[in-house]
């Protein structure tokens, strides 16, 4: 499912679980400082250690694009980035099918939110820019196999 293209990855040993990435993302995309509205979420355990990164993997043949009945989810043919737009009606079909927890529910705006790799922002993904320890990297990896995992609801 995962394609070989530039992705945001976490280097577990460096992550301190501060969630500044999620905050930066929420600010950049939603104008709020609610980390639960960040498109990225690093799941941390009780020791504040990295467990999982919840983030869209911009799948090839993305299940979410199949599922979206509005047609607002789209995989850009050139960049390979899957994006959502404001036609979304919040039916949560995409949340139901995404194996990576990449789709989150923004219940206030009744819209599904997801990573767009900050395609319109200079300097690339803000999460990578904001990460104080440099745990996040934006790169193309040889081995891009990632385990699926899932997220709780994004209750704002």
């Amino acid at each position: 499912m995962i394609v070989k293209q530039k992705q945001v990855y976490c280097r577990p040993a460096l992550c301190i679980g501060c969630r500044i990435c999620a905050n930066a993302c929420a600010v950049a995309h939603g104008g709020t400082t609610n980390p639960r509205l960040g498109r990225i979420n690093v799941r941390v355990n009780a020791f504040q250690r990295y467990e999982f990164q919840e983030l869209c993997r911009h799948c090839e043949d993305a299940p979410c694009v199949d599922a979206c009945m509005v047609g607002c989810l789209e995989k850009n043919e050139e960049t390979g980035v899957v994006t959502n737009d404001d036609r979304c009606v919040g039916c949560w079909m995409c949340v139901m099918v995404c194996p990576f927890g990449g789709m989150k529910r923004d219940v206030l705006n009744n819209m599904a939110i997801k990573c767009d790799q900050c395609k319109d922002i200079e300097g690339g993904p803000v999460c990578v820019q904001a990460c104080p320890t440099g745990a996040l990297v934006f790169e193309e990896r040889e081995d891009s196999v990632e385990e699926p995992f899932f997220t709780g609801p994004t209750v704002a």
Partner: protein
Amino acid sequence: MNYVIVGNSAAAVGAIESIRKVDKEGSITVVSNEKEHVYSRPLIAHYLAGEVSDDRMSYRPGDFYEKNGVVKRFGVTATGIDTVAKQLNTDAGVIPYDKLLLTTGSKATVPPIKGKDFEGVSAFQTFEQAKAVKSRIAPGVKAVVIGAGLIGMRAAYGLEEAGVKVTIVELLPRILSRVLDEKGSAMVQSILEKGGMKVYTSRKVEEITGENGQVTGVILDGGEKLETTIVIIATGVAPDLEIVKGTMIRTNQGILVNSYFQTNDSDVFAAGDVAETYDIPRDKPMVNANWPNAHEQGRFAGLNMAGNMTAYPGSLGMNSVSFFGIPVVSLGLCDPETEKAEGIEIKEKLVPENDIYQKLVFKQNKLKGAIFIGDLAYCGAIKDLIKEQMLVGIIKDTILEEKYQLYSFLRKKRIEKVEGKNIQWPEHYTSQQKFVKHFDEKSWTEREKDKRAWK
């Protein structure tokens, strides 16, 4: 290559897109009896509610057909197939094909209720019908929806949101009986009733009454009369098999296809609601009529038509709706009691005061289905486990409670996947621990020793 597609909806779009990925030259013709640009069928309920306007109904941008070089034959009904001469008969002449794809979808089955031909009574399947219903909405108007399946409930909820007083009449003892189990139905019904909708179960509409051709009300069994100016009949849908009647193409409930979406004529393909495909959790052929399946199947069918043979792993019944802000998801075989499945084990979590209900159905250490109401946590991961039919016996008891173990399980699966192929960090990362060490089994058991609440 000359591709002809009958129908113009989810499956057809999936096919067009994937044919064009493989074959940029061949001509594609789309034959549809609906005149509109491809629109989103499920969205007609949101249209009714006034959530989306006319111009936002289309499923693909306005230049979709031009960009993909598609010949449009809209407003044309296909009437039959001549599989020997390889041509499609339509009410506007014959269309020759090299590869034919049938995506005729499903059509509403309307029972012979007396008075169903009055104006204001309709099924709820097309944009046109939705427009007609919407034109009758005015302040103080009442509506009756017959049938509490998914389409009926969507229509009813759309009307409710538009400010119409809706009554739902269902023949069976519970609503959404095909996608939820008893507890789930009861919970959704209570959510609806809290929201002010009226739901009559185990009741039957005997007659629809009218005056001057216009509907005025319905009469229920027992003689009770409901006044109404809108009646929506949503008693069920069935694959639209009209086009293959009298041909050699084999059907059961739907058109029978192999895993390449070929019918028994290898140049005729079928996909979407009309096709009967292998259902993964139930392990038998079934018609799974939903949007994600239709698009995915169209995508696979298109690839196969263009000669890029790709086998389809199978379909999965899945659906997601929201009522009054509460999400409801049903996956696969979620009601084993009604389906009389054997050897089933069930895990569930029920918190009625918060409208939360989660249920997992296992059979022989594999997940077969699930219900999520109110809380969609892990629903995507569960869908994946069902679709891949992974062995999950080890986490049976903990998926719903201790999410942590689900994580470690999924992670272990991953280690197996990349086993023997340790992830090597690039040179400049060498100051860190090895990635693999982080997933070390021993450190995991140590961490599992003390219980932690997961947030």
